[in-house]
């Protein structure tokens, strides 16, 4: 069919930015629609998609962003200048090749330095910035998922006035009027309620443009208690920075520092580097974790203590006392004696546990580190600092650095100010305070008192609904900005693409409010940059420095300076501690503790409309698509709450949780390892106004959260309500059934018997034998292999989302997850072990396709759709697959995934409608796909291929570089799979087994390397390094730690070979 394009004429007088933005509207004029429907009723839907991004607009956008990509970084975001596709391609742009740009993702604890992979002008994959120490090329699940966030078809697309779409001009005019209405002193009537982005330009605006305005920073999961404690202890304007690389013993108190959103990638890497045991005698750090509910830090810990969050303060005090008793001098003794108004023991904690832990800490003076979770009150943080100081950790494993941000008002203060009518204009930037601020702040009432509420948000949400003006916010991948990393280093943020929906960045809105005139927000950032570099370099080098800043993604040596300050315990802190005593109130089934925890998937709720995050199984509970209250088996038994698997689906009881006059209903998931009478409530779900993905998922735990008990609360009661609730778990069986899957040993055992992994399970008896089947000779110069270190894997799932993004893996929805049809190519198996069902140990094991040399899937495929290549890859010919699913049946690892429906083409809530459901991927989602990986259709099997597209690209690049040289072997360690590249703990090693210089070749020779299900003689190319724990032998119960797999599997093990009785 011949396609005729009648380009609608541009309205006269519309130039500049309005020009291209108005095309979207133009293409939706009735005339245009009529024409479309008349000419091509079939194609009409495709061209003016519901997501509002028409094909033409899309092409324009592409052209424009290509120009941006090509003309580079000095070009401003001036779309009107570059609307046509290239007539002259920039010389370094090779179609089909990726370009990488440095940027950073704003996070509440400090931005994450990133490098974004851009393909023909559209960002498609997030990687860490390899140059910056806070990333070293690593990233986390949230960062990975922002690609989908960028292309979320349900992002806010238009300016709204009282909920009705308006155009940009109307808003600009209104803003002008508003500004004119402000007299000189009106600044005080202007209040900002902003999220935390650690943005220096924003800080500059605050002090330069809005010095007298109210500035309130609100992040529901950012307490600031740690900074407050540091300020009290060391004087204002500082924060403490732990150095896990320098600590041999880490004592984590209610602190999930291995979870990326709570800690940072550097702490994970530093900590894990101290744990990477290669051979007997290697040093290994030790981790003690005290926590109320299982976290991945607790799962990694060598000693884990279940303790209610509300008892933690008393516990830290008991620990301090024990340290003092064991001879720790310094101010700690005085501090403890000065505030000693507590009982001797912490409820229910084994005294020996505290005593031995304290002794261990003393043995590791100056090399240990006590970290306190952000959730804990300031007094606990002070005590933690005092302990660190007493143990000589200050300036060794913990340093004090200057904090670059001034604290603002807190949200209660702002609410009070609004309450007494002193705010006339409220500007809410990012976040979603109406949804996630403490429930005692009644926004519905308060916002009525503010004459003008302007809200900048990426989504139209609860806060937008109560605002007068809603302004679509540009994504961080669409904006110019800058940020501080956690260590205070100065990072650049640059746009990868023009704002897809014409959104404004926070800086643009703030500058407009202040009447700053600018052509592009780039100038605003450059201004800040100029201020920063002025101190170091001559101004005339500006361009060069700026380009370098953008290229590297950060300014060299810009990290905050370490401050040497002494800790004056008594003078500064005793009073505070006396005012805020640490109590441990007893808990019971009618007096429960509530702990509000960050959700590992949706964070504080910001990722609730992100399907990748919704479908990614929680590392601990393996739950997808919603949250549940978590409680220990004992608590459940006392309250008569049951979980049962009915026909493969986890059916749980629902309860009504009441606290302080408020109540919510929530399903309860029983989780081993939770402390008794404590209920973990993951926040972020139960949104009222959100997109289709987040709609109706989970319950809203914020509804119980008040400002003076925002992180945990004691005294809640629960009542079972009628009815069962079905959860979607990706793993329902939690024990290994005595099978030698995860193989684990304590460090001492490993030192004596380094190849303990070869003496477990059936594999110890069944040596590999010959095979009748011969795959093609594997004699290519590259022989790919992978090794996963179970000691350093935290189970954080960054690899899962990275793989999803790299390999265009579809999401399937809750219903399909319940049916066991999730599509992840790599998954993390989580097992509990140990005799104590209440308090088991946890193990993680990432499983992806093992690329068996003797692959059982290949022999059974009748059409040769999955075959072996000479590099040892088990490759998939998607086009050849007819979908017999025999390969998946015969896969012992169950890593093959089948497209039961057209997950890419049909809406996930209409899968069963078949051809009656709308077909086609929204244009926006198409943009998020990796063009180097086939998007699979229904009826096709798929699985991990070691990111074969990356391998091929690396080989091609190397050949191109080598020219006629016969050396086609790519340099060692020069290619990374997506999972490996994301892994913050560096637990995944991948490379060419044939290359002796490669890391993988070395790792595979380690004694504790083992293959899973080796006895099947399938010769997997992925192997594991046995998990090693480092328990303190003097601790109570230490003899069981790390020993469960040895104990359970020993009767299958080497003893028989030795002829011993057992």
């Amino acid at each position, binding site marked *: 069919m011949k396609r005729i394009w009648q380009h609608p004429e541009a309205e006269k007088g519309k130039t500049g930015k309005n020009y291209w933005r108005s095309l979207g509207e133009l293409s939706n004029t009735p005339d245009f629609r009529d024409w479309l429907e008349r000419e091509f009723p079939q194609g009409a839907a495709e061209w003016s998609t519901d997501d509002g991004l028409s094909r033409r607009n899309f092409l324009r956008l592409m052209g424009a962003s290509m120009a941006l990509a090509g003309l580079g970084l000095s070009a401003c975001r001036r779309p009107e200048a570059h609307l046509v596709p290239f007539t002259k391609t920039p010389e370094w742009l090779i179609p089909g090749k990726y370009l990488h740009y440095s940027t950073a993702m704003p996070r509440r604890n400090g931005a994450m330095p990133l490098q974004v992979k851009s393909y023909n002008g559209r960002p498609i994959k997030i990687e860490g910035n390899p140059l910056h120490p806070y990333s070293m090329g690593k990233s986390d699940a949230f960062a990975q998922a922002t690609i989908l966030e960028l292309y979320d078809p349900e992002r806010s697309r238009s300016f709204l006035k009282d909920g009705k779409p308006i155009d940009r001009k109307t808003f600009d005019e209104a803003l002008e009027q508003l500004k004119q209405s402000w007299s000189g002193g009106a600044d005080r009537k202007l209040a900002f309620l902003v999220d935390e982005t650690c943005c220096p330009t924003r800080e500059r605006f605050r002090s330069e443009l809005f010095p007298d305005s109210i500035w309130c920073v609100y992040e529901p999961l950012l307490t600031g208690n740690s900074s407050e404690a540091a300020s009290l202890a060391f004087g204002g304007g500082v924060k403490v920075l732990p150095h896990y690389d320098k600590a041999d013993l880490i004592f984590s108190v209610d602190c999930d520092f291995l979870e990326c959103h709570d800690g940072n990638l550097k702490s994970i890497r530093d900590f894990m580097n101290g744990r990477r045991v290669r051979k007997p005698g290697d040093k290994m750090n030790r981790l003690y974790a005290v926590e109320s509910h299982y976290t991945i830090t607790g799962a990694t810990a060598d000693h884990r203590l279940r303790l209610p969050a509300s008892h933690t303060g008393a516990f830290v005090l008991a620990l301090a006392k024990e340290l003092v008793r064991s001879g720790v001098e310094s101010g700690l003794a005085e501090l403890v004696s000065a505030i000693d108004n507590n009982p001797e023991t912490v409820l229910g904690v084994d005294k020996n546990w505290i005593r031995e832990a304290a002794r261990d800490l003393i043995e590791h003076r100056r090399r240990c580190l006590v970290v306190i979770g952000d959730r804990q009150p300031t007094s606990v943080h002070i005590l933690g600092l005092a302990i660190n100081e007493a143990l000589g950790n200050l300036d060794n494993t913990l340093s004090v650095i200057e904090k670059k941000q001034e604290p603002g008002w807190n949200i209660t203060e702002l609410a009070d100010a609004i309450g007494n009518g002193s705010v006339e204009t409220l500007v809410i930037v990012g976040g979603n305070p109406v949804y996630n601020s403490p429930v005692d702040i009644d926004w519905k009432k308060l916002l009525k008192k503010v004459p003008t509420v302007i809200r900048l948000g990426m989504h139209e949400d609860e806060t937008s609904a109560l605002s007068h003006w809603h302004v679509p916010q540009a994504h961080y991948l669409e904006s110019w900005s800058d940020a501080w990393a956690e260590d205070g280093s100065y990072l650049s943020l640059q746009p990868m693409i023009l704002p897809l929906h014409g959104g404004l960045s926070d800086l643009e809105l703030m500058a407009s409010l202040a009447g700053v005139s600018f052509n592009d927000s780039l100038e605003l950032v450059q201004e800040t940059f100029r201020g920063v570099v002025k101190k170091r370099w001559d101004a005339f080098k500006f361009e060069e420095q700026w380009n370098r800043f953008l290229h590297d993604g950060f300014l060299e040596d810009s990290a905050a300076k370490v401050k040497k300050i002494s800790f004056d315990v008594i003078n500064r802190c005793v009073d505070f501690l006396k005012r805020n005593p640490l109590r441990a109130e007893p808990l019971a089934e009618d007096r429960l503790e509530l702990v509000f925890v960050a959700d590992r998937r949706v964070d504080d709720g910001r990722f609730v409309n992100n399907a990748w995050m919704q479908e990614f199984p929680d590392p601990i509970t393996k739950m997808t698509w919603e949250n549940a209250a978590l409680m220990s088996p004992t608590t459940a038994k006392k309250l008569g709450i049951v979980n049962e698997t009915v026909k493969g689906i986890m059916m749980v009881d629902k309860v009504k949780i009441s606290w302080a006059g408020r109540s919510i209903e929530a399903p309860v998931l029983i989780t081993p390892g939770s402390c008794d009478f404590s209920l973990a409530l993951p926040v972020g779900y139960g949104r009222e106004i959100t997109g289709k993905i987040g709609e109706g998922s989970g319950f809203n735990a914020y509804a119980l959260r008040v400002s003076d008990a925002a992180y945990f609360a004691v005294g809640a009661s629960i009542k079972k309500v009628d009815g069962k609730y079905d959860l979607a778990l990706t793993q329902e069986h939690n024990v290994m059934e005595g099978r030698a899957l995860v193989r684990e040993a304590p460090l001492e055992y490993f030192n004596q018997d380094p190849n303990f992994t070869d003496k477990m399970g059936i594999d110890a008896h069944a040596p590999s034998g010959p095979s009748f089947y011969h795959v093609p000779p594997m004699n290519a110069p590259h022989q790919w292999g992978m090794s996963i270190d179970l000691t350093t894997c935290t189970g954080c799932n960054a690899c899962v989302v990275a793989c999803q993004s790299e390999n265009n893996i579809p999401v399937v929805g809750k219903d399909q997850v319940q049916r066991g049809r999730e599509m992840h190519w790599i998954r993390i198996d989580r097992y509990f072990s140990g005799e104590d069902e209440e308090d088991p140990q946890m193990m993680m094991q990432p499983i992806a396709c093992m690329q068996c040399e003797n692959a059982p899937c290949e022999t059974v495929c*009748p059409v040769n759709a999955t075959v072996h290549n000479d590099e040892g890859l088990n490759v998939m010919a998607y086009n050849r697959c007819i979908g017999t699913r025999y390969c*998946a*049946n015969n896969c012992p690892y169950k890593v093959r995934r089948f497209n039961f429906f057209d997950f890419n083409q049909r809406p996930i809530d209409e899968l069963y409608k078949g051809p009656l459901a709308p077909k086609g991927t929204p244009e926006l989602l198409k943009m998020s796909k990796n063009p180097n990986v086939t998007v699979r259709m229904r009826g096709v099997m798929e699985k991990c291929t070691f990111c074969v597209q990356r391998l091929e690209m690396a080989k091609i690049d190397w050949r191109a570089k080598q020219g006629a040289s016969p050396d086609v072997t790519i340099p060692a360690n020069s290619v990374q799979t997506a999972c490996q590249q994301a892994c913050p703990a560096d637990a995944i090693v991948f490379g060419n087994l044939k290359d002796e210089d490669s890391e993988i070749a070395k790792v595979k020779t380690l004694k504790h390397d083992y293959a899973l299900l080796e006895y099947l003689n399938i010769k997997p190319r992925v192997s594991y390094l046995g998990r090693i724990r480092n328990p303190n032998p003097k601790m109570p119960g230490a003899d069981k730690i790390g020993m469960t797999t040895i104990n359970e599997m020993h009767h299958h093990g080497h003893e028989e070979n030795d002829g011993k009785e057992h």
Partner: protein
Amino acid sequence: MESSATTLPETQIMKREPLVTNQRSMAWITDKVSGIVEGKTPSWWWIATLITGAIAVLVPIFITYLVSTGVGVWGNNNPIMWAWDITNFVFWIGIGHAGTLISAILYLTRQKWRTSINRSAEAMTIFAVLCAALFPVFHVGRVWFAWWLFPVPNANGIWQNFKSPLLWDVFAVSTYFTVSLLFWYTGLVPDLATLRDRAKSRFKQIIYGIFALGWRGSNRQWRHYEKAYLILAGISTPLVLSVHSVVSFDFATSVIPGWHTTIFPPYFVAGAIFGGFAMVLTLLLPARAIFKLHDLITQKHIDNMCKIILLTGTIVGYAYSMEFFIAWYSGNEFEKFTFMNRALGPYWWAYWTMISCNVLSPQLFWFKFCRTNPFVIFFVINCVNAGMWFERFVIIVTSLHRDFLPSSWGYFKPTHVDILTFIGTIGLFVFLFLLFIRVLPMIAVFEVKSILPEADPHYHGEKKG
């Protein structure tokens, strides 16, 4: 003989039971069997055909839904990638076995009693294989490419994978179907000629005439016929053993505990014969009662079939227990777990249904009373029909749902599409059988005549009393 002294008293020679009772004549047999086809269509036939036809329509409806929407409309999941689809396939293909066994092996071993049941058993085979073939074809994710299973030259230049048992299945089942059809049709020719000769209407004469291929019953034709039939019987005999052996290879050659078992080929063949005979009886008992065929399908026939069911059922029971024994004896923890899980895991009910139906219920056939009471027989054979379906379900689903890594264990439950498609194939099967008995002689007239005493005028073999 007569002149020599008789060493045994006459009364001690046990009389062989006649295969056609009441001393029916050849003409009576022709009239009786042809009469079923020629007579007025009974009203029950219309009702039954309409009902089963309506049920059979479920097949195209749900296959259409399946193909247009995706395999996800079934309950299959990860790790249970095969469930009712392959269960039904093996179930139906197994049923087909009795037909070939009766026509080929019993023919070669000169089991004369086969003559009154072989025709309908062969028809049953063909209908069962048709129902069976539906599943492997339509269970694939992209059925429009299912032709890639056949070695058709194509532009991709990709050949089939001859290591795959699934490919062996394609050849085994298609060969089996072709040979069974030929065998059945060859055997039908003389009877078609009889129907042609007896036909009153011109239309029938033409139709039967075409299919009778000009059969005139000449000596020469009989000679050719006998040779052809013998050859086909020779070809079919190994197929009886091979088809279900190949089907069992789908499982036996895999690595999955519960599938990876060398006992499967004989166990599957025994099971198939077991299930096939049960289905033959299921169809013939009502037909015998309705058409009053008691003189042709005698108590002895039924008794023989019951005994075969008892024998094969016991073989199957032996196989079940041997699987357990080997799982224990192998020392393989995965095998052990799989079998314990079958008996005591989430699908215990399926396992014990299978054991009670397949192993326990046929034991009633040790008693003559049970082998002669049609109600007991009907009860047992329907137990066996269900039990054999459950056997395949147990093998497929319980092995897959909990294999090596406990993290990926799952549970299968069928959707309404699974259930209705299967019910549809039952409808289709019975519908086709009803059509068959209406238009073709359900008993091989000429073959039955050949075992009458009159067909053996020299009284070889036995003395007529």
